[in-house]
């Protein structure tokens, strides 16, 4: 691993952010004023401006100077198109694309359901098509979009823009996701892990706006965590941080697709819960079909007990993690977080309080995600805004 990987952002990216920040404050300025305002060297400013012009975020035009000697000074300003961003959320069985303004408020949003795990090509084509659709429905063009971020349901190695080589999502491993989407859309696309984006979404627009260090848990078909430390996404040295779905649960023997036994995701997932709940409501059809709506399920004492049990299993794992990093909050997202509601949340809370020390749990608040299944999508929007140099507004 090179030292550049370890820095939170590369030097070039940081320079670009400094230049964008200065332009937001001051409007139209000379390059020399950028040197003074950012504290960067002249050549670093030149490189940053050049890169930002190529990304379409900044425009340059020559200023008329009185003396007329030498090269004319260049005025720099923000391009007029930093008003829109696109967020893409790929789940295991859906693709959702949103077009938002710089305030994070949605303008257009489209969803399609398909088997994302089995068909990478189909999912990428769909994501690109929906992106073009939201842009045309929003009555703008691709050139008006300042940034696009796509979230994927797997761990991503930042240096290669590929999924980390794991045994899950085998059809997706090896694809350069940024390049695949970028070539379909005709613009560079930033890629990220879905749970990381869920955490970003809740940080900027949801239940964790007051938090600095917290854990977002995406519990759906699998279980993953997004970690925010110091209000930034923490990914770990190999991009695998937060992969808690394969932590083994004591005394459980279920076989897992990873080759392990009793992994968290073989014990708790939305599919397993639906099968369990089916025994309560439709004993004859134990496959989850024909279940009542979730508000009815949550209100049923027997089903609520199953939801709380699932919460307690996840909560025991989170208790260990709380002992080590002492977060301010745990935010429960994904289908299970949203649909499991209060019974699920209480189960998590009970186990965290039971298995972690009182002095730790006194500072941990266990919450349900506020964006109800849209945390990942809004996180993609927040990430796009950040990449475009517009700090996502905390509303």
């Amino acid at each position: 691993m090179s030292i550049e990987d370890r820095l939170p952002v590369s030097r070039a990216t940081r320079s670009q952010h400094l230049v964008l920040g200065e332009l937001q404050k001051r409007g139209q300025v000379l390059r020399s004023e950028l040197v003074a305002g950012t504290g960067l060297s002249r050549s670093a400013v030149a490189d940053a401006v050049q890169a930002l012009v190529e990304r379409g975020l900044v425009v340059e035009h020559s200023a008329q100077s009185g003396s007329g000697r030498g090269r004319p000074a260049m005025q720099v300003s923000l391009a007029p198109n930093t008003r829109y961003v696109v967020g893409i959320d790929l789940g295991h069985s859906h693709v959702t694309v949103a077009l938002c303004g710089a305030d994070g408020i949605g303008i257009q949003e489209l969803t399609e359901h398909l088997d994302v795990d089995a068909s990478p090509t189909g999912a990428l084509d769909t994501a690109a098509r929906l992106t073009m659709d939201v842009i045309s429905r929003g009555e703008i063009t691709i050139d008006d979009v300042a940034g696009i971020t796509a979230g994927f349901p797997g761990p991503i190695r930042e240096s290669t823009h590929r999924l980390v080589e794991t045994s899950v999502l085998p059809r997706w491993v090896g694809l350069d996701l940024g390049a695949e989407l970028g070539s379909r859309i005709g613009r560079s696309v930033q890629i990220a892990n879905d749970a990381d984006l869920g955490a970003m979404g809740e940080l900027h627009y949801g239940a964790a706006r007051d938090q600095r260090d917290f854990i977002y848990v995406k519990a759906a078909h699998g279980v993953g965590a997004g970690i925010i430390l110091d209000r930034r996404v923490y990914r770990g040295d190999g991009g695998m941080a937060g992969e808690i779905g394969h932590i083994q649960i004591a005394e459980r023997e279920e076989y897992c697709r990873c080759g392990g036994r009793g992994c968290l995701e073989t014990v708790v997932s939305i599919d397993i819960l639906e099968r369990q709940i089916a025994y309560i409501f439709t004993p004859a059809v134990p496959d989850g079909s024909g279940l009542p709506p979730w508000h009815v399920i949550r209100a049923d004492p027997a089903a609520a007990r199953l939801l709380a049990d699932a919460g307690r299993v996840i909560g025991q794992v989170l208790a260990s993690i709380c002992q080590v990093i002492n977060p301010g909050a745990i935010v429960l997202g994904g289908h299970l977080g949203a649909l499991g509601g209060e019974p699920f949340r209480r189960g998590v809370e009970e186990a965290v309080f039971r298995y972690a020390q009182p002095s730790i749990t006194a500072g941990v608040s266990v919450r349900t995600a506020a964006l109800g299944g849209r945390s990942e999508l809004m996180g993609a929007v927040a990430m796009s805004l950040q990449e475009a140099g517009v700090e996502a507004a905390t509303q």
Partner: protein
Amino acid sequence: MEFNVPANRSTMSAVSQNTRSRLHIVDLVRRGWATTRGELGTMTGLSRSVVAQTVGEMVAEGLLVQAERDPIDARESDANRLRARGRPSAVLQVAARPGAVGAVELGHHHVAIAVGDLLSHVLFQEEKPFPVDTGAAPTFELVDAMLTSALRRLAMSREDLRAVTVSLPFPVVGGIVEPYGDVPGWRGVRPGDLLRLPAGTEVVTENDANMGAWGEYTHGPDHRAGTLAYFRIGDGLGSGLVIGGEVFGGAHGMTGEIGHVTVPGCSLPCRCGRIGCVDAVVTAATSESATTTDVHAAGDAVGTVLAQIASFLDPHVIVMGGALGVGSPEFLAAVTAAYHAHGVPNGRVAIRPARLGLSAERRGALDRATQVGWASHILPGIG
């Protein structure tokens, strides 16, 4: 006066970028991680011109000295000389500055002190067995006596101490000791108040596992790690994290309390007042009557916990310190087996014993004091 520098993001945000760069440069140069302007640029992320200007000022102010590269080094080989065109890069060192720094390192059963200079040399160290849990007052009586005799031997006085780090086997929140369970002699203690030091000496209070992590990060081979996770195993279990070059403190300063994770099926009483904590399993394995079975049980419990933490944090490396962590091959074998049985299949995260052995905490505490000692030379208005 008490302040936390430089491994503390909240106080550091109040310090200017230039001061922060200077502190960072001193740390990199004195540890030998970067000795040329080019290396400093790579490690700090600062532009070439900012590095050149800052280093220039620091040389002029007598904080850094530069030597031309040793002629023998420069002559290494003809091929190298041909490749390295232009002026040879000047090698930077930190300047000898007046003053010394100290570390007070406490375990549940020992008291140790160390004194170092600002060039990161250890000048003196000493350790004595002592029942530290009996209370802060008798412990600091002994600390005081040991410090007095150490300074006398070094022909120094307390006025020479720029900064002292106190490393404790208890959780520390905002400089105040907050032990688990029944340790009345320590609850609410501010160790800075018990050290008889002049008003100008900075005191930093830290948990011992945090200092062990810091010692291994600053003295081991992993200073390029994004995250280093350290586990102090023996006489209980604690953990410390270094993330992005800083000791990670969490939302409320209570990180690293991994010892009080529950081991399924275990019914040993723990010092925290609960039953079945991994801390209790480890403590049983370090007692005088411990059997091989106890050691295996501890290795199994610790390996399982390490696998969970590796899955969650994906650190660059996991380092094991403490008496069991560095001293027992049976324990290491049991940990490794459990870690691989419970870990994520790609098992990428390496485990290694502490390079500094049992002195990781002490060396980490001394480095921390050295950082703060330098801050007193660099921060405007202090020292």
